[in-house]
């Protein structure tokens, strides 16, 4: 990953009130994107991600995950969002989930969009995930959702932009 001025913080959201989704929609001029989150909720839940508000069955993911005793693979195809964690979920006790999402060539108009995700919560598990959005449009918005719950006050979401040149 390039150093210095090519790794630019675009925006950070620290929740002052609980909410179900966090949206990034202003990130033009970069090659790749990186999102880093530390979140909590009121109970155990997974974080979903969609692009450009597309809620169609246009996403898939493949995951390898461990919960401290069992390692497993899982795949979901033609689903309505990318599940960004499995055993590395967030919960209602702590801010211990650390997640890093890398979205490559997000503005390319000739290819589907792929992302790599590492999600971790030491008490529950660790995940390595590849996600796909089957759409050639440039990504102009990213919505991170808490599904049936809300992200708690104090949850942090930061998006960085990486320039190839």
């Amino acid at each position, binding site marked *: 990953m390039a150093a210095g001025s090519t790794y*630019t913080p675009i925006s950070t959201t620290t929740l002052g009130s609980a909410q179900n989704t966090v949206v990034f929609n202003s990130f033009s001029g970069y090659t790749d994107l990186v999102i880093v989150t530390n979140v909590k909720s009121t109970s155990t839940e997974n974080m979903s991600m969609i692009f450009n508000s597309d809620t169609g069955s246009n996403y898939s993911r493949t995951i390898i995950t461990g919960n401290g005793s069992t390692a497993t693979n899982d795949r979901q195809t033609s689903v309505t969002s990318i599940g960004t964690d499995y055993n590395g979920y967030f919960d209602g006790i*702590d801010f211990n*989930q650390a997640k890093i999402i890398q979205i490559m060539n997000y503005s390319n108009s000739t290819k589907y969009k792929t992302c790599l995700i590492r999600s971790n919560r030491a008490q529950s598990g660790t995940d390595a995930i590849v996600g796909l959005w089957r759409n050639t449009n440039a990504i102009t918005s990213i919505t991170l959702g808490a599904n049936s719950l809300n992200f708690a006050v104090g949850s942090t979401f930061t998006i960085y932009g990486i320039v190839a040149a």
Partner: protein
Amino acid sequence: MPNTYNLIATSIVGSGGAASMDFTIIPATYTDLLVKISARSADSGTDIAIQFNGSTSTVYKITRLYGTGSGTPTSNNNASATSLINNMVTQPSYTASTFGNGEIYITNYASSNAKSVSIDGVTENNATASFATFTAGLWSPATQAAITSIKLISDGGNFAQHSTAYLYGISNS
């Protein structure tokens, strides 16, 4: 354009090796920390133990997931560890001139919460013994504190010459 991905410090192992690579002065001015590692052991062992602020008590938690290139991947954990630990070091029995590689990402290292860590490591060496390891780590001392130092310990003796660790600070503004 802001400069938010800054090299804080470098550790390069010289001739004779070193038992650890240490970062002893970490300012609290960044949001996250990232350590990039290239490491080989002069003795034995393939793990790096990671300790913060000199803490050696059982206040670390880890859950690991790893594969060796054959068979079913494995997951294990330790809820009362004395360090974080991840496989990312080649050893003398491995192919010559190969070094393991790893990345340690520490989120919100200066916060008043427990510190969550994402760790990746590989020891590819064109042989049957190689690992790819993912670890979820947590440092949760009785009194939460900003991370001001990081110690990287070779679990099997000394790091070999030319092992390196680079510490970067990442700011969100």
